[in-house]
């Protein structure tokens, strides 16, 4: 597998450079945007990156049909507008959409369950790309499988487009709990635990020894308010993604600034209270019981 980036980097060096960009996003907010104007709102509010999309997840959910990679013109328009990194999504397993986004110079590729999967058995082999990848996960095994395939950032899946934080909380608690449980295992029990997790044993050993994932661990899926953002940070997420939550609210500018503020000051109730004032209405939310198993985006991927 060649990973040469024209500057003589080895595979390992190349992986560090990918993880490096994820490190730079820590403590920040990545916002879904569908137009250059929205990208400007996000950047002016202090977003660390934007996710270029044709439709936000709540609209994808409403419209149904097959959701694919964003059109090139939409991404290019947003790239021209922004000085911050631009991310875009590919369908799970669609390595050709990923090749196209890499050629476009997209800063981060999200292999995302929000789009309709292209491959029900296999995710993209992410090691051969110069672009870093972020992937969703519901538990530690899923996170480590994606890292084993080359993902440079993990985010919880949550339930995208739901405006309901409950699934992101479930996934964060699961991943953080799985990590804590590993740190107290005796060394000889690591391989059997790796077998249970269906995860590479070297990565399981890394987590056991370091008490954290080998790549940054962010939260996504259902974050709609500054308090939701702070909750995810308080549960151990190092940064957050907000999808429909900003531009489906009544006052996106204010809400974007407030979520950024809450993500930085999640541990300071005075700042948090300040971030919650005068926001207007949040997006409408969906009760999980009303979603059938086939309507749950988090069930996509393995």
């Amino acid at each position, binding site marked *: 597998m060649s990973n040469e980036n024209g500057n003589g980097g080895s595979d390992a060096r190349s992986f*560090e*450079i990918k993880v*490096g*960009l994820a490190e730079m996003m820590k403590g*920040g907010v990545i916002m879904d945007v569908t137009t250059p104007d929205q990208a400007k709102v996000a950047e002016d509010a202090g977003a660390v990156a934007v996710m270029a999309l044709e439709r936000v997840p709540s609209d994808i959910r409403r419209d149904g049909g097959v959701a694919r990679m964003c059109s090139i013109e939409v991404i290019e328009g947003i790239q021209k507008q922004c000085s911050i990194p631009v991310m875009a999504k590919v369908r799970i397993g669609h390595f050709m959409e990923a090749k196209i986004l890499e050629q476009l110079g997209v800063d981060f590729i999200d292999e995302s369950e929000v789009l309709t999967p292209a491959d029900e058995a296999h995710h993209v082999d992410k090691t051969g790309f110069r672009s870093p990848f972020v992937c969703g996960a519901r538990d530690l095994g899923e996170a480590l499988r994606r890292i084993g395939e080359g993902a440079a950032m993990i985010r919880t899946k949550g339930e995208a487009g739901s405006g309901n934080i409950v699934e992101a909380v479930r996934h964060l608690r699961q991943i953080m709990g799985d990590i804590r449980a590993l740190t107290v295992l005796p060394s000889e029990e690591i391989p059997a635990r790796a077998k249970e997790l269906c995860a590479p044993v070297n990565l399981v050993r890394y987590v056991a020894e370091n008490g954290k994932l080998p790549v940054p661990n962010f939260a996504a899926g259902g974050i709609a308010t500054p308090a939701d953002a702070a909750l995810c940070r308080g549960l151990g997420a190092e940064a957050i993604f907000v999808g429909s939550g900003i531009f489906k609210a009544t006052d996106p500018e204010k809400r974007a600034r407030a979520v950024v503020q809450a993500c930085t000051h999640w541990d300071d109730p005075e700042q948090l209270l300040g971030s919650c004032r005068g926001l207007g209405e949040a997006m409408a939310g969906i009760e999980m019981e009303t979603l059938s198993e086939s309507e749950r985006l988090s069930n996509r991927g393995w």
Partner: protein
Amino acid sequence: MTTVGILAIQGDVDAHARALERVGATPRPILQEADLDGLNALILPGGESTTIAKGLDRLDLWDSLRFFVHSGLPMLGTCAGAILLAREVENHPVATLDAIDGVVVRNAYGTQVDSFSAEADPGAARGLEGLPCVFIRAPRWKTLGDGIEILARVGGEPVLIRQGNVLAATFHPELTEDLRVHDLLVRSAG
């Protein structure tokens, strides 16, 4: 014990904290004016310069940081931090501290697919030979004033510079195991 503040609005604060601990200094996250009291040095980390600059607006911290610059205490800015130290930003301007007499260009090497790592060119300052440099959507100095010391270059471009007690790296010494840049900061803090 040397206490070094790390501006903690956003970015790779943890990576700097680990590097500081390994060179024997105590890191302290900075989120308000009172956190600056009694510091021996200050780091502006990597991250997004627009995000950090807007956070400084919100927290009303610019004057306190400018006071810190004028006090002559040692500072280190890496990547986004180096941008915030510049006199002027050529493209996508953000507010800055004017601690380095230079004009900086953001994302000067391209997008993330153009990010790279390299060793410092031969001829780096003594003690910094072969410094490993990781560039992530890195900035580049377009012009630098006469009084600025160039400690390391990569591909002929100045990547580690010093004006008075202020160090600016367009790369990320905090992302490698090589602690010489953090050591330089902490030693200058006495």
